[in-house]
């Protein structure tokens, strides 16, 4: 089954980010190698005036025919700032989809739950497809779904930390209760982290730092794509339950059935 968000189908369950790359050309190539269909861009790095600023031309490296360009509000410290950025993006002709990121703390970049919910309620009412970045808080995830967000995007661990799914127990609850796709965002530092999220039943993952700062971003992007595919397939096939004791593959009682 393919990934569906707000009634739109996507072939890839790996979402790509655009920050931290050594050059825009490398970013473009790594995104292509990842096979991603959805690419998120920080609005603060783009020119939203329509003047095609050559010194802020990150959007020109993402083909809007090939990818769904998902603007994000990174840099916003409260709901009002995030909403202003969303409006500017829509006015600049970008898709009316928004990855809502509100992190007032520039150090850990942890999302503000109160401002995020407030902004989501307003943007959903205004007709935006809202994908909120949140801490792995199951109740907040439900509140956002009730407000009409198209996904929830809980973090595995802080942005850029490469620490993997430190929130796995909370993620399990969010996935178990979800009525919209769950996209695990932030902290995924290795392909095995991505596979783990997919095996748990996450609908997709978003990876940026681990690809962008790798020695070979294109190869690393392919590694993540493979891990996401494997993890998803294993989830769909159904993984065996974990046991504390060993189960022999050649049972000792087999002679009784002979």
């Amino acid at each position, binding site marked *: 089954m393919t990934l569906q968000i707000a009634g739109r189908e996507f072939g890839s369950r790996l979402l790509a980010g655009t*920050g*931290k*790359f*050594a*050059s*825009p050309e490398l970013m473009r190539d790594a995104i292509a190698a990842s096979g991603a269909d959805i690419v998120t861009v920080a*609005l*603060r*790095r*783009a*020119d*939203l005036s329509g003047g095609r*600023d050559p*010194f*802020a031309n990150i959007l020109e490296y993402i083909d809007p025919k090939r990818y769904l360009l998902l603007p994000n509000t990174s*840099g*916003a*410290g409260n709901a009002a*700032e995030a909403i*202003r*950025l969303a409006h*500017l993006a829509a006015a600049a002709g970008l898709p009316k989809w928004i990855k809502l990121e509100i992190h*007032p*703390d*520039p*150090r*850990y970049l942890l999302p503000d739950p109160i401002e995020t919910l407030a902004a989501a309620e307003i943007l959903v009412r205004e007709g935006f497809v809202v994908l909120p970045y949140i801490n792995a808080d199951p109740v907040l995830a439900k509140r956002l779904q009730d407000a009409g967000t198209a996904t929830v995007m809980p973090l595995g661990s802080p942005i*850029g930390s*490469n620490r993997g799914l430190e929130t796995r127990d909370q993620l399990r609850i969010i996935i178990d209760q979800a009525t919209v796709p769950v996209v695990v965002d932030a902290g995924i530092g290795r392909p095995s982290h991505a596979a783990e999220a997919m095996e748990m039943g996450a609908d997709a993952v978003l990876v940026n*730092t681990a690809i*962008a*700062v790798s020695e070979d971003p294109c190869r690393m992007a392919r590694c993540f794509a493979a891990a996401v595919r494997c993890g998803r397939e294993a989830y769909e096939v159904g993984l065996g339950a974990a046991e504390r004791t060993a189960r022999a593959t050649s049972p000792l009682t087999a002679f009784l059935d002979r």
Partner: protein
Amino acid sequence: MLDFAGFVGYVEAVSFLREFEALRIEELLELSRNTGAADARQAAGKTLLTPSDFARLISPAAAGECLEDICRRSQAMTRRRFGKVIRLFAPLYLSNECINNCKYCGFSRDNAILRVTLNVEEVLREARALKEQGFRNILLVSGEHPKFVSGGYMADCIRALHAEVPSISLEIGPMETAEYLPLAEAGADGLVVYQETYDRGLYAEMHTAGPKRNFDWRLETPERAYAAGFRRLGIGALYGFGDWRREAICLAAHAAHLLRHCWKAQLTVSLPRLRPCAGQFQPPAPMSDRDLTQLVCALRLYLPDAGLVLSTREAPQLRDGLIPLGITMISAGSHTEPGGYTGAGREKLHHTERGRIVELAAGASEWAEGATGQFEIADPRSSGEVAALLQRLGYEPVWKDWDAALTA
């Protein structure tokens, strides 16, 4: 963990001034002196560093063989946290009028230099020249003189620029929170203030006249700016007055305090070394290139999330070497005199004596090359040359990293 609480004797520090008064600097300096190479290496390998670990990283022992390891770790941490990008900014000097006398600064009131204050139109002309080069992040710099550089003038300049420049920071004489409020509302998002030296004795010796003599008032400036809504705070010490390790320990304590108390602000730390300027001041305790490298990496390990800023005070070869080690933001193609980018204000050049303008002799401003700069820069390369260099080093030069909508 970053907290210097263990070295100040109480936990509930409200302002940094109180924490600073109680900071046991000598204890940390002694720890630094007695550190061996093995201790330094161990400190460098930790995930969360304590103030003691920072003292070990800036120790003489850490400057030897293990500096290479510290640099490697600093580089890896910086790339993971900030990516393979370097942000660019340019200083725009508004005025070189000043009521202070500071032994090391070219703008000192008793220096008979060519002075000028740009009007709003001239400031806009300078900003547009910088914009043409690519800059979307401008630092407005000014001497401290209420007669020439008032709060109203600053707000006018910021308002005029805000429509065209997404990110505006200020480096001006310290103000009250109530005076900062209209500047933040006008669209400034960052405030930079260097303590110059955290040594009270040296501070008194260097600042011989004017309101800048007030050490405490300056020390609490970042907190007042934060209260007014500034989103980026920049601090730093000026190296060359005294023991750089003492300055570094105080600076690290200051940074740790601001990270905890001003939690919504992005903190940057600058590492300026004294440069030649009018007045011919000679640094009594010059800091070596090796010391500076060690400090950049020690700060990165101790403050993984702080921006580290390197200006054109440093020469090209050193800048090129330091950038990949832990620096996140640099200036390029800088001028340290008002009107430096376009020649704006040249016809208004004058001397200032006791706050009064003294006109130059007839025709003198025609042969003058322009206003006098604050100091001589050491990296004369253009912004375009520096951007190309960054690309060769494997970094994307980032010009725009902020949108005016965030400070509207």
